[in-house]
């Protein structure tokens, strides 16, 4: 028998620190498979966020830098502008990207920087212990919204993919869910497409992934997977929101 499914070469053998059932591992694998597929591992530099995924450099076999909280798109901009031959990807959580780093993501997207941003949205601050995120759903209890997110005091959850898709500068914007095998395979396809856009100099690519945080949701892995379908997807619809066929670059 031959292996038909193995860990991508882009990832090493370390045991990941993520909690049981956390979606980061699957997203890491999909990114790793994309780096393998396009044979770009040895010319890729990743930008790690502040949050649970800050330790991603312990798992990827490519060069990685750690950016200040929310600044990965700016760091990625500085990198891609100075070495356009390298493949640059930023990996960010919802607090990092949609809260403290909102200006950085919007402007990197608007400039059409030829980088790939992987956005992991689990509707909560994971590493700091489950506080309210800009993507926390209305009514969702977190350690800083103990009575549930309140529309009157906290506002609505932000839909990043839709927001970025409105910018002329973005080339590829999609949202997928890391829950069922079918949805994970769709996410894989989009992540591949996002890296392909960069390889082909097509401009800014962005994939948002709805993932679980069983620990901070106070749920089992199974319940968390169900929550994605029952609560997250109705508010954060899945799909490819934008896909340019031709690059804006002259």
């Amino acid at each position, binding site marked *: 028998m031959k292996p038909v499914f193995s860990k991508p070469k882009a990832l090493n053998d370390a045991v990941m620190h993520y909690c049981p059932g956390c979606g980061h591992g699957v997203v890491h694998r999909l990114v790793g498979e994309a780096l393998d597929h396009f044979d770009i591992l040895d010319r890729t*530099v990743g930008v790690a966020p502040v949050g649970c995924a800050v330790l991603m450099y312990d798992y990827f076999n490519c060069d990685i*830098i750690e950016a*200040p909280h929310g600044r990965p798109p*700016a760091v990625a901009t500085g990198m891609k502008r*100075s070495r356009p031959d390298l493949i640059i990807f930023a990996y960010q959580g919802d607090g990092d990207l949609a809260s403290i780093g909102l*200006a950085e993501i919007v402007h990197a997207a608007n400039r059409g920087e030829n980088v790939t941003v992987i956005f992991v949205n689990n509707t909560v601050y994971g590493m700091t212990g489950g506080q309210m995120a800009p993507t926390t759903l209305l009514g969702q209890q977190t350690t800083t919204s103990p009575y549930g997110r309140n529309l009157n005091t906290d506002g609505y959850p932000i839909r990043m993919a839709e927001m970025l898709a409105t910018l002329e500068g973005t080339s590829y914007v999609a949202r997928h869910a890391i829950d069922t095998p079918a949805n994970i395979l769709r996410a894989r396809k989009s992540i591949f497409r996002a890296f392909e856009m960069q390889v082909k100099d097509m401009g800014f690519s962005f994939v948002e992934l709805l993932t679980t945080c069983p620990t901070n949701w106070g749920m089992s892995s199974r319940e968390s997977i169900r929550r994605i379908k029952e609560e997250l997807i109705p508010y954060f619809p899945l799909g490819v929101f934008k896909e340019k066929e031709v690059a804006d670059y002259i």
Partner: protein
Amino acid sequence: MSSGKRILVKGNDAIGMGAIKAGCRFYFGYPITPQNEIPEFMSRELPKIGGEFVQAESELASINMVLGASALGVRSMTSSSSPGISLMQEGLSYMAGQELPAVVINVVRCGPGLGGIAASQGDYFQAVKGGGHGDYHLIVLAPASVQEMYDHTILAFDLADRYRNPAMVLADAILGQMQEPIVEREEEVQEPRKPWALTGAKGRPARHIKSLLLKEGELESHNRLLQEKYREVQKHEIRYNELEVEDAELVVAAFGTSARIARTAVSKARSEGLKVGLFRPVTLFPFPGERLRVLSARVKNFLVVEMNTGQMVEDVRLNVSGDASVFFYGRPGGAIPTPMEVYERIVKHYKEQ
């Protein structure tokens, strides 16, 4: 060596010229008065020589773009003025922790807050004591002429690379806006190899640049290494200028624009027979404290002149011997001390001996 051809240049433009001479091809910045000529110069000149100019969305973004470019091993820089530099402190702390070189220009204006656009030296503490969170230092150069705006920018790139540490040129609105003749450097600037840079892990293990050190004792060791590096900087990179200190009974200590003003006052005092000298720190970090200590074995009166309410004066007091008197004259909030005011202070304290 140079042909000696003098050209008339504005201070801010001299910084851009120095940066390009130093091999900087990547500039990231956000507009703020009184340094706008720097991004304007870079946006005009860099595309001509294969460089990149990005007008960032904020100073937060600027410094992080510099962080990214620097991590790949290229020379890059940003410039701003006081309120913008405050926003950069986060990135500067990360870069110091990650040991990334870069050059940051601060054309200081007056504060606190939005303050005003006139010249000030109110950012001395922020520049030389770290500025952001954690135990770290920037290398800080204090030009006092347009020629030095050019020279110090080149030097800042060299020192930043040599010590893998951000370097700041601490100028001010007067130095940025005034025009003076300068002579451009002719010999090529040598850039060191950067075996630590992220270049893609082709043919080598993956490399990581980080400042999060969670293993027991790891961060303490890292901090000790950083301090060791700062001691090396203090050992090798102290620069200062002196004028007539040999027989001086009173020494005026001032940096940057204040030193220019003080120089006129010192000359006037000398012409009237007062034994007065001038001591100008060129590097603010490393601070030439040892030289002050040596001087203070003989000179017992120091007058520190600053365009603030007294910042460098603290470092002077820390370094001179216990029986020396340190007087201070400063004007904050964009007010500029006149040579006459400084002269009067010299006379007053000279007589108090």
